[in-house]
């Protein structure tokens, strides 16, 4: 967190006006949402299923190196599409308006070890509501890292570059553990709670199914290609994990992103909530293909402002949102993927060591108003 509040120059009225302008952007998309958007998500789902089937088909002959390479690459992309542009966004309810029971946040299940029901709670309800609020949003370092100077240092954090690397490799398991709030539920008393046990069982069932499919059935079907296929599905899962972890780190950890104190959100207005989302998220710049492969989470700022708008609309929304950042003289944190990933990792390394508690200077808004 920078020592000076970067939103201090805004008056309370300006913040509410900003909120109204953002509401208008949202309403415009909703009024225009329709057949083309529906066709888009159906096309993406169809492409993902075709790619996954084709890749798994090719992997039946993975004993031949070209088939292994092609199949592994295809399956990696298919898994990334499933988790990002399709799963993440459907589970946000971005496509609920279509009223298609097959593409709905309450019925969708994804290729991931965390059951969608649990992920929806920790992600949609906690992270998206309490974005970047220290002590409330566990996404800030996932409970294993410090990603802001204001988070308390503990010797455990010395190892956080390693924790982060391991988390990246096994990200889907990291998320499942995180959705279970494993850290806080491991005490004996909590572990025995029936509610926790039921959720842990659901995760166990999901893991079993996923592992059986990727590491038993598919390799067995490959016959003589058993081992290469096993390696291929493992690699595809690893690639998916590393990729999604990188994209998600870029959403809130790069330098320039703000975090907030627990008490700062007491009595927060709609305008202030929007402002927190704007200051607490970072984008990734790049090509259309890049945006697609990140599930449009490269438009993290727009996603956090409007988590339930269809992802294919974030690009057009971004133009308008960016204009508002300029109008209100706020910093729009964005950059190419390598730069943002480096920035986030740099922070992970830097904050593994303790730092002096920064002094936060928040100028009084009334005084600012007079000065302006």
């Amino acid at each position, binding site marked *: 967190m920078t020592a000076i509040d970067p939103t201090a120059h805004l008056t309370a009225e300006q913040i509410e006006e900003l909120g109204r302008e953002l509401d208008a952007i949202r309403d415009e998309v909703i009024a225009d949402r329709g057949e*083309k958007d529906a066709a888009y998500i159906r096309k993406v789902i169809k492409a993902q299923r075709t790619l996954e089937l084709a890749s798994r088909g090719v992997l039946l002959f993975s004993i031949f190196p070209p088939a292994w390479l092609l199949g592994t690459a295809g399956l990696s992309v298919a898994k990334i599409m499933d988790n990002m542009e399709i799963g993440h966004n459907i589970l946000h309810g971005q496509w*609920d308006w279509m009223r298609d029971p097959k593409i709905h946040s309450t019925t969708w299940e994804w290729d991931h070890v965390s059951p969608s029901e649990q992920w929806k709670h920790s992600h949609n309800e906690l992270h998206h509501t309490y974005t970047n609020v220290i002590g409330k949003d566990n996404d800030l370092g996932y409970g294993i890292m410090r990603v802001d100077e204001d988070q308390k240092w503990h010797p455990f954090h010395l190892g956080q570059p390693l924790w982060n690397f391991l988390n990246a490799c096994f990200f889907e398991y990291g998320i499942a553990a995180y959705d279970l709030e494993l850290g806080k539920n491991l005490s004996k008393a909590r572990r025995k709670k029936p509610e926790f046990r039921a959720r842990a069982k659901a995760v166990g069932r999901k893991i079993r199914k996923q592992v059986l499919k990727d590491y038993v059935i598919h390799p067995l079907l490959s016959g003589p290609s058993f081992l290469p296929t096993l390696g291929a599905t493992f690699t595809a899962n690893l690639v998916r994990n590393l990729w999604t972890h990188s994209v998600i780190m870029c959403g809130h950890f790069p330098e320039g992103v703000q975090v907030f104190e627990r008490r700062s959100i007491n009595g927060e207005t709609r305008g202030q909530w929007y402002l927190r989302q704007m200051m607490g998220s970072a984008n990734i710049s790049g090509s259309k293909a890049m945006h697609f492969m990140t599930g449009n989470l490269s438009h993290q700022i727009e996603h956090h402002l409007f988590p339930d708008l269809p992802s294919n609309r974030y690009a057009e929304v971004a133009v308008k949102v960016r204009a508002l950042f300029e109008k209100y003289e706020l910093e729009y944190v964005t950059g190419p993927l390598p730069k943002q990933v480096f920035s986030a990792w740099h922070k992970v390394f830097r904050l593994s060591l303790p730092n002096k508690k920064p002094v936060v200077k928040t100028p009084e808004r009334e005084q600012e108003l007079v000065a302006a």
Partner: protein
Amino acid sequence: MVTTPLLPSDYLDLVSPLRAGADLRGRIEAVHPETGDAATIVIKPGRGWRGHTAGQYVRLGIDVDGVRLWRAYSITSPTNRYRQDGRITITVKAIPDGKVSNHLVRRARPGTLIHLDQPTGDFVLPQAKPAKVLYLTAGSGITPVMGMLRDTEFDDVVMIHSAPQPHDVIFRDELHDLVTDKKLRLTEVHTDTDGMLDIARLDELVPDWTERETWACGPAGLLDAAEKHWADYGVQERLHTERFRPSVVVTGDGGEVTFSATGKTVDADGATPLLDIGEEAGVLMPSGCRMGICFGCVTPLKTGAVRDLRTGEITEAEPGVLIQTCVSAAAGPCDIER
């Protein structure tokens, strides 16, 4: 196991959506205009279609502007057509502001995949042929009756049909052909010039109406008058009616509705069915006939109270209480499990 988290059918649907065992769907094969605002839609149902009885309707789900909407339409093809060429037809009249009807009549294209339920409805012909039949219809109320006329021939059939003007009469040419062939006696009432049909005129138009097995379908005004008239003469068991819409008698106070499974809360007025409120909010609501008959929409009421729009009766939440969302409106804050 092989396809987890998906099902094998999710993949099969990509190539063969009408196959046996799939969710019941259909494909629009053709759209034939009937009048300025009505059209007949030819549908090829999926392999799971069980066939209909003349007079029944089918519930159909179609994506309009990307949103899946469900409505019920009478089947107008004879029952043997499906056996012959695997097709059925429905006939739709576009109603003002009707999202689905206007879409079907004016914008639907052959090749469009739609979603179907099995045919249903008890507005049907009996097993034993009645000696004399009267069809009393108005507007699009002719559609289930056309399904009957095309399906079964009777020795003595009379029809009284009301429509604003001659060119508004759906199936007019076909009806007149039946008259020419002496298979039907038809009275057309053109309400723009003749005024609404006065039910008391029946004695003059069909002197033996009390002896006839009668099927009536049309606006609520006509059906209410018919039911009273038949009851007054003590022959109500001869009258069979079909209503396309529930008759709303009482509205409630409205209130905040929570859909707890989806986690959405919206304000609802006291006149709009909770089914519509939920659908508007993007909640996945099961639905059926949308008029309180089929119980396809029943949903647990967890807290609060709702009002039955047909009777005004209040239902309060208790464990195990199920409500029909299509005919219930909020009667205060309530929580329903969707």
